[in-house]
């Protein structure tokens, strides 16, 4: 027969179980881009259940929400989006969501002095900040802030994972700087489907040329194609790059235009510009995405590059 004290103790113990369980309930996080979802999953670990809206190959500039997306957003404890007008078609939806749940625009929090101004709009910025690992490391920090605020009990573990993640990003950045430095000076021109690589160019000393503007919603005029063909021929650029989330027609048109002028241009490879690689693969993570881009670019433009990239983890590029 239990004493009164023993019964009280066991009652408290029984009552504490659901409390502990609730404390361990993962926070539901919905992220827009795959890169943000990746960071949230790595930093949050078990404390979060992350769902990304835009999968591999999806173009965030033109993405419109589906009904399933709206339901997921409404049920989320925390919504992480990029901001800087990257998800142009989702702005109003996300602002509406802010009245129901916590919504954080992680890249919006970057100080303006590190951002590159938008080429077409005076008061806007180029959103492709993940192309510079240094900047993305800062954003990972903001992701960590948001996750910690949503799940304070797990903050310590999350901050530890965040620091580890930022260290790895720093390592990647070192690899990128070293590898890209080996590309000869005259070949340091990166021609891609749209202007997604300005931060990349600034960070690693490359001239970047996009056929379409900063957003893939802009039409690429033939005038622009002709301009770039002129550039390819004049500077004897050997390779141009296709992007996984954008049509490759313009690049093929570039190739034909250059060939008509007697200059052969290769497709140097497919780059991950606005979306990562296939889910479950190494390239389907942020580190893998940048690793793949750097390795592909360096190899195609004549640099010295290890076969399987940074830590030998790249698949068939």
């Amino acid at each position, binding site marked *: 027969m239990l004493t009164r004290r023993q019964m009280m103790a066991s009652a408290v113990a029984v009552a504490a179980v659901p409390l502990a369980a609730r404390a361990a309930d993962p926070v539901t996080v919905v992220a827009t881009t795959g890169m943000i979802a990746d960071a949230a999953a790595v930093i949050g670990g078990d404390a979060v259940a992350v769902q990304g809206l835009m999968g591999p190959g999806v173009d965030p500039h033109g993405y*419109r929400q589906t009904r399933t997306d709206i339901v997921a957003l409404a049920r989320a404890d925390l919504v992480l989006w990029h901001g800087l007008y990257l998800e142009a078609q989702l702005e109003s939806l996300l602002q509406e969501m802010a009245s129901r749940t916590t919504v954080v625009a992680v890249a919006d929090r970057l100080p303006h002095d590190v951002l590159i101004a938008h080429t077409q709009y005076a008061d806007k910025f180029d959103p492709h900040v993940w192309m510079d690992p240094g900047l993305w490391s800062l954003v990972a920090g903001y992701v960590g802030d948001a996750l910690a605020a949503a799940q304070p009990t797990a903050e310590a573990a999350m901050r530890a994972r965040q620091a580890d993640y930022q260290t790895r990003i720093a390592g990647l950045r070192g690899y990128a700087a070293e590898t890209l430095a080996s590309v000869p000076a005259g070949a340091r021109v990166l021609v891609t489907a749209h202007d997604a690589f300005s931060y990349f160019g600034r960070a690693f000393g490359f001239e970047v040329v996009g056929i379409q503007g900063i957003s893939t919603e802009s*039409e*690429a005029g033939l005038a622009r194609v*002709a301009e770039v063909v002129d550039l390819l021929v004049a500077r004897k650029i050997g390779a141009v790059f296709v992007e996984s989330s954008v*049509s490759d*027609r313009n690049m093929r048109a570039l190739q034909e235009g250059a060939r008509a002028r007697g200059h052969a241009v290769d497709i140097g490879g497919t780059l991950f510009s606005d979306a990562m690689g296939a889910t479950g693969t190494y390239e389907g993570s942020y580190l893998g995405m940048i690793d793949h881009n750097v390795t592909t670019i360096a190899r195609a433009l004549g640099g010295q590059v290890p076969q399987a990239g940074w830590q030998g983890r790249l698949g068939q590029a």
Partner: protein
Amino acid sequence: MSFLAALSLQAGYNAALVAVGAAMLGFAAGAVGTFLTLRKRALVADALAHATLPGVALAFLAMVALGGDGRSLIGLLAGSALSAGLGLWLIEAMARRTRLPEDAAIGAVLSVFFGAGVVLLTVIQTLSAGRQAGLEGFLLGSTAGMLWQDAVVIAAGGAVALCATYVLRRPLQLLAFDPQQAAALGYDLRRLDLALMALVMAVTVIGLKLVGLVLIVALLIIPAVTARLWSNRSGRMIWLAGGIGALSAYVGAALSASVADVPTGPIMVLIAAAVFAVSLLVAPQRGILAGAIRRARLRRDWA
């Protein structure tokens, strides 16, 4: 690139390819459009054009599912032709078997197919298929990313359509003018009408890339009605309409090439419309000015 350079094919390989392809398309559209307007079937042509959209989307999905690129032009055009054909069959079946008047059947098919196509495009956009952007270009046309193989498809398709139109010009003319006489002479009216629609479909399908499905019907109609202002004989109308179509398409492509960020289809149509407006004014017999001068002279003679 200056407009004049683009006009004279001096603005580079890509622009020249677009301009020449556009001219061939414009010529075929004008010629086929002549019979289309004389036979008074322009509305069906518009429904056909809008009915291509779900076919394009489904072809894309099919090609991706089979592991292909998803954007091979020939595959997409094949899909567009199939769904347009289905739309045509539905219009005919509805008009024949139900009490629905023909224009209601046309409107129903046009909107349902187009709506289905838009929904499919939205679905495609959310897939992980990658490289899906570019299908929206089929709505209003784009010169960007035009490749040599595209130009070949357009030129070949246009040439075939033109040849078929020339071969069938006599029966089609008779069909448009006096279908009862055509039937009495032994022509199969149903087959001739189908042939005409097949020609319209051919022009629509090859014009999807440059002009887009929303406006291709305008490129079929406007040069033909403009030619009507200048000629009283249907034989000559075909050549005139072809020429006006080719000119509008060529100049439109050159303009679109030299000015950034403008979709091609609307520019071509606006140029064709400008030619129509000028013709409406100055055409010698059927123009407004000519009519006013005639009436003034009549009044003076009888005053």
